[in-house]
């Protein structure tokens, strides 16, 4: 080695001169491990005390878990949640687009709708729809100034089920509209300009370009709303519909097994929530695929042949 060399370039040959490489030891985190053990112990003792407590009436829970009345209540709760959320999303999309309109009348109408339906209790709205016949004994639809009118008795048209769908769906539309509006506004305006410059109409660019990119913003709060609706729908008991919770209440009002039957209802609510959560994460993965640092799967015939 030329010791007098002015350049101190590193060399592999004189390793003996260098201090040994350091061995890194990651932080131990004893505190975190201790906390985890304490938490697990608390959880376990909690579960044991619940499972071993006769006052919970676990045999009664098992007896009523698949009771016909509970099952039909679960069925009503499930489909009511699905139908009202579909109405909420469709209505919310229309309201969001209206609220973003440059026409003041259109955006005013949308904002007034939001103001009213978010500003009054949904319980009141349900009762209002249920008692619509008191305000409008007949519902008529037709073309003004002609004889083309169809009239129907309100009590026939607005059944309890119809009142529940209207009350919950119209209310949900107001909340969904703000969620969808925030999603649409999160998409850069350049995306629309690019779509326009390629000859796309507004509708097409909204459907193909803007909405798919708004989805990652829209989905998590929509999942919240759906799970919320699962439980909000129990309000329909006030208009004589037997949902899951009301079915449990009907049973315990006769046999006084209050706690076991409420546990039955909760087991089914938790099951439905678990399913909805799984669906939500599947949808999120679908719309989040462009955010991953990987290529899309090759699925085009064109490239298989090459």
């Amino acid at each position, binding site marked *: 080695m030329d010791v007098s060399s002015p350049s101190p370039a590193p060399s592999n040959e004189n390793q003996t001169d260098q201090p040994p490489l350091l061995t890194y030891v990651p932080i131990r985190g004893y505190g975190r491990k201790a906390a985890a053990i304490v938490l697990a112990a608390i959880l376990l003792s909690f579960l044991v005390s619940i499972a071993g407590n006769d006052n919970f009436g676990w045999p009664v829970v098992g007896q009523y878990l698949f009771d016909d009345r509970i099952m039909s209540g679960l069925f009503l709760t499930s489909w009511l949640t699905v139908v009202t959320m579909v109405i909420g999303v469709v209505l919310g999309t229309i309201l969001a687009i209206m609220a973003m309109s440059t026409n003041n009348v259109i955006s005013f109408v949308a904002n007034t709708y939001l103001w009213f339906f978010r500003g009054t209790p949904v319980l009141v709205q349900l009762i209002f729809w249920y008692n619509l016949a008191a305000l409008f004994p007949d519902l008529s639809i037709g073309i003004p100034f002609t004889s083309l009118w169809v009239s129907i008795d309100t009590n026939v048209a607005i059944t309890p089920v119809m009142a529940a769908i209207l009350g919950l769906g119209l209310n949900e539309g107001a909340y969904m509209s703000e969620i969808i509006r925030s999603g649409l506004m999160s998409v850069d305006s*350049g995306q629309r300009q690019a779509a326009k410059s*390629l000859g*796309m*109409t507004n509708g097409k660019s909204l459907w193909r370009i803007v909405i798919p990119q708004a989805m990652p913003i829209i989905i998590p709060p929509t999942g919240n709303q759906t799970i919320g609706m699962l439980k909000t729908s129990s309000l329909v008991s006030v208009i004589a519909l037997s949902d899951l919770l009301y079915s449990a209440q009907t049973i315990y009002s006769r046999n006084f097994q209050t706690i076991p039957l409420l546990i039955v209802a909760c087991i089914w609510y938790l099951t439905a929530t678990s399913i909805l959560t799984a669906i939500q994460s599947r949808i999120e993965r679908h719309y989040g695929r*462009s*955010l991953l*640092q990987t*290529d899309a799967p090759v699925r085009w015939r*064109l*490239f298989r042949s090459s």
Partner: protein
Amino acid sequence: MSDPMVVFDRVSKSYGALEVLKGINLEVAPGEVLSLIGPSGSGKSTLLRCVNHLERIDSGAITVDGELIGYRQVGNLAYELPEKLIARQRARIAMVFQNFNLFGHMTVLENVIEAPTQVLGVPRRHAEEHAAAILERVGLGDKLTSYPRMLSGGQQQRVAIARALAMKPKLILFDEPTSALDPELVGEVLDVMRALAEEGMTMMVVTHEMAFARDVCHRVAFMDGGKIVECGPPGEVLANPSHERTRTFLSKVN
């Protein structure tokens, strides 16, 4: 002399009290590459965006290939066209943006075939083959299934050019295509644009790349304060400007 591809006839536009275009007269011939240069706020980007009716003009007229843009003329009245017909005009006037504006939820190939399949109704298989050929040409034949966010700025802008080319446009508008790029990536985008110019594509390019304006463009228009101060071959406008304003601008950018 063939008919001009683009004609600006006394084009004016204001944003409120601010007059951004003051009676622009300009013609672009088929196959010509024209660059628009000038200080920021001079109206060059606005002028470009009026060509595909992304911005409305207040008076005057713009025609592309003999067709009045955005309006239907009846006597002395011009009625704004319905959205569908404006969209049809835009389909043959491509645009490349400063910020690329690639569709983030689509792969490179999907970006390029989106408008041909959705707007022109080309069968997907057909569009994919055409798109793959164009992407090969801009040097991105190996990136078809990548998403835009995985690409460098230069690669993204080349995808944007491929997306524009897929519509078989008669004219491409470039709005500062290299301004958002790292310096070492500018060259790969300019190379693609140079190749297009050599193939005879009609191009209007708003740019700050004086070397590109000098070497590739047939004519250079210098804009300031909403007017075209001078317009001519780069050898005149850039090398020997006749206006004081042009000289000051060029001394600052060079």
